[in-house]
């Protein structure tokens, strides 16, 4: 049983364009039976924050290749990726590396 969590979700590198241009979102995740991990955070983001073109943000149950995920300023690879269990006051940052054009990036 997971208590409600307050987390900061941030988008950068162009990813914010999929979220009405808003970079920082202070989010309260409701209490629920399953613990909150990145996997179900993504589901929640897709349902509640994503404004357009989900295929540019997600692929399957993860983020699209080319989108970096930092949890409290550390690469999610070090923390278990989708399985990382969120804690209150955590900060999750999604940075897109796919944009612009080849020359002039």
């Amino acid at each position, binding site marked *: 049983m997971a208590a409600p969590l307050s987390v900061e979700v941030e988008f*950068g590198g162009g990813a914010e*364009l999929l979220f009405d241009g808003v970079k920082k979102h202070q989010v309260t995740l409701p209490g629920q039976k399953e613990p909150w991990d990145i996997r179900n955070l993504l589901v929640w983001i897709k349902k509640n924050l994503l404004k357009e073109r989900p295929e540019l943000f997600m692929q399957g149950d993860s983020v699209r290749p080319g989108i970096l995920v930092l949890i409290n300023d550390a*690469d999610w690879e*070090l923390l278990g990726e989708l399985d990382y269990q969120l804690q209150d006051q955590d900060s999750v940052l999604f940075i897109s590396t796919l*944009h612009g*054009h080849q020359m002039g*990036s």
Partner: protein
Amino acid sequence: MPAPQCASCHKARAALRRPRSGQALCGTCFCAAFEAEVLHTVVAGRLLPPGAVVAVGASGGKDSTVLAHVLRELAPRLGISLQLVAVDEGIGGYRDAALAAVRRQAARWELPLTVVAYEDLFGGWTMDAVARSTAGSGRSRSCCTFCGVLRRRALEEGARLVGATHVVTGHNADDMAETVLMNFLRGDAGRLARGGGLGSPGEGGALPRCRPLQLASQKEVVLYAHFRRLDYFSEECVYAPEAFRGHARHLLKLLEAARPSAVLDLVHSAERLALAPAARPPPPGACSRCGALASRALCQACALLDGLDRGRPRLAIGKGRRGRDEGG
């Protein structure tokens, strides 16, 4: 599970694991390692000798922002001076916002900035005008082909204006790998043969050009910008979705997911390519109009502009295009 300790300073928590060595580093130590590697790339390759006046192609985007920031840090050690050169292709909305980012950077870093516009250099042709002119030709991605060629020329002109001895651009390992894939897919033997090395020595009177970030993966460029809190512009060029490079990029991402070293391996493979004798292009001559390096009577930039002026924009692209397409 908590993040491991930094393998370098042993004090801070690690923020990332370096893709090649697997070493876990904190943000500060990673940035120091990144800068040290760029310094090594430049010094080992003798890319920017002491006294060089280096024109940095600055677009406001993540790569040129990181490039300019790192070179500014390393400039005293290398004994070089920097000039920012930004190219205004005349793409409404997109380029104005990007140039605003470059101006902010120039002010913050206290570096001189010169902006060169297609409109001034190329007889009034902006990219928006080129896009309109090529729109009816059925292959809208051709406007990116023009842009690639013209931007190279514009950067060269800007560099000369500021008295530069060398030109640097922010191409990273992913960009280089995409280019290698594209050249293979288009059968461009000439480019494959030329594209592998770290820099072009500057044939046909062109300024020597190199890419100090060439061995840095795109992910690490983005992370460096993040940890150094660098301000850059990150919207997609309005014409980019139509460019062929997008397909190469998508393929590269899929390959990288299966084999993370694929990006750098592609770059290294291209460096080691040798062409079969029959495939080697003939030695180039000089453009009859502007004197730049050219394998035909007109160099690519003059041929493209010629086609535009005559209302026949596909003159220099299309049939017999092996070795003619560029950029995208």
